[in-house]
């Protein structure tokens, strides 16, 4: 056949379409990208979400305010704590429920534990993708230590349903504060090892420096939040900008980096973990005594006054928001989550993959910290 006649593609005949699907090792779970490549270079990338679309937001319209908790958790599989938090915040805002002082501290400590466990999971994914198997195993082991704490506190390891409208489900068990400190010291004592083996390693530097670089202007234009934005030098963190729980009660800092590449993003994640651990110590010290739960009305007959609200918090991946509408009934009228991976995985990813090499697809994707169920919902 004559290759030139009747050829409708605009580019050269060396252009290929490559499907980068969920079975690929460099892919973050159930997600795929269609790449248009010429040789090793990506000309265009199209993200295809939908593998995990369960229609939660619609299903939540059929369930009572409290029955929705199991679904809310499953929107972000890696870090369910912030999902419970955002839903509770929205329900509290609509129903005008107050939260006791101690519950704010318990929430913050719990959320920071979840953040550290989520970041360790992210570190596992990134180091594993680069071939640092040892570091990946360490991160997974240390995450497991935090899951043990969460299991003792809530009964669940992954989906906890601990935060509740009006406070938290239970107070810390006896001696739990000491076990938090002990576990965090165990993990913290390995930071020098992590640095030697991974963060200060020349191979990590060479493999991530300059990959998936984005400027602060572009990041803001495309709606980025979280590490992606903080790695470009902007100190934007909802915990500081619009404090909730007990984040305005203790001193802490927002770690930033300047370069906006994968290297900066991973180092921001490391610094955030260290900052979170220090924050937990300070919160434990400042925590007052008192109740942790204000009673809510009977959940089976609970009607919430009509109205709408938008609340936001800083999940481990960026700005997490929830637009919640009530028509005065026993069920939500409309639920819409603003998840950080939505912007990172659908807009930034397509933009950053343009001109990149095929070998860097997983690198860019994991450094953007995309978690697929959060996109699909």
């Amino acid at each position: 056949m004559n290759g030139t006649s009747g050829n409708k593609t605009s580019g050269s005949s060396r252009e290929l379409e490559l499907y980068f699907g969920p079975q690929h090792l460099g892919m973050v779970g159930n997600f795929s990208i269609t790449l248009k490549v010429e040789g090793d270079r990506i000309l265009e990338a199209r993200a295809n979400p939908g593998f995990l679309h369960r229609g939660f937001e619609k299903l939540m319209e059929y369930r009572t305010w409290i029955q929705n908790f199991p679904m809310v958790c499953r929107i972000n599989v890696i870090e369910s704590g912030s999902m419970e938090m955002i839903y509770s915040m929205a329900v509290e805002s609509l129903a005008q429920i107050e939260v006791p002082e101690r519950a704010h501290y318990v929430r913050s400590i719990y959320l920071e534990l979840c953040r550290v466990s989520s970041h360790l999971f992210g570190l596992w994914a990134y180091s594993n993708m680069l071939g640092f198997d040892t570091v990946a195993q360490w991160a997974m082991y240390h995450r497991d230590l935090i899951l043990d704490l969460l299991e003792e506190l809530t009964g669940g390891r992954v989906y906890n349903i601990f935060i509740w409208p009006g406070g938290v489900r239970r107070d810390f068990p006896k001696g739990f504060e000491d076990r938090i400190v002990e576990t965090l010291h165990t993990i913290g004592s390995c930071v020098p090892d992590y640095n030697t083996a991974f963060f200060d390693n020349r191979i990590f530097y060479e493999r991530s420096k300059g990959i998936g670089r984005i400027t602060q202007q572009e990041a803001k234009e495309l709606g980025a939040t979280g590490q992606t934005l903080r790695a470009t030098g902007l100190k934007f963190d909802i915990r500081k900008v619009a404090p909730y729980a007990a984040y305005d009660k203790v001193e802490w800092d927002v770690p930033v980096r300047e370069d906006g590449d994968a290297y900066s993003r991973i180092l921001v994640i490391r610094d955030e973990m260290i900052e979170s651990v220090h924050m937990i110590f300070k919160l434990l010290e400042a925590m007052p005594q008192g109740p942790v739960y204000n009673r809510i009305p009977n959940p089976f007959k609970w009607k919430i006054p009509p109205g709408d609200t938008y609340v936001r918090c800083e999940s481990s991946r960026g700005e997490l928001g929830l637009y919640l509408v009530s028509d005065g009934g026993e069920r939500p009228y409309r639920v819409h989550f603003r998840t950080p991976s939505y912007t990172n995985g659908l807009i930034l990813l397509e933009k950053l993959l343009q001109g990149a090499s095929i070998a860097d697809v997983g690198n860019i994707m994991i450094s953007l910290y995309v978690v697929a169920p959060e996109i699909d919902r």
Partner: protein
Amino acid sequence: MIEQLKRELEATFKGVSVTSEADRRITVVVDPLQTIALLRFFKDRGFSHLALLSAVDLIDKHAFELVYILTSYAEDTGEDAVPGELILVVKSMIPRDKPTFKSVINIYPNAEPYEREIHELFGIHFDGHRRLTPLFLERQYPIPPFRKDFDTRRYVEDVFGSIPAIGDEEG
């Protein structure tokens, strides 16, 4: 800041209603013809971050409500700067039998997937959007599935058959 913004808005746009809530949230309800101009006004004013674009099916009012949630990146510290904790909710209603609206991609580029999602789940068309292809769903539905008149239970029973109650099954 809130009072000043309110005065400015009422002087510039006709028929806007501005209400402010205790938790630093301002709700602006505006006629759909003015929404684009209003969004541009806010973007120039410092609300540079479109946090969320959502749609609500108000079936009793025969309308869809489009909700734009805007915040700032709080990087300016000048007198005119928008405080980071301020949340602006812009709402406009469009008729349910003619669900078409203008795309805001050229004002807020990150609206692209939001508009695709709303097009797919609510059947609202956005003029000027170049890629209104399916985002999540793999099959066509008789009614866009997030509309209030789409009954998920009935759909499941029609497509997959009804599940007998416990004790009713044979054998």
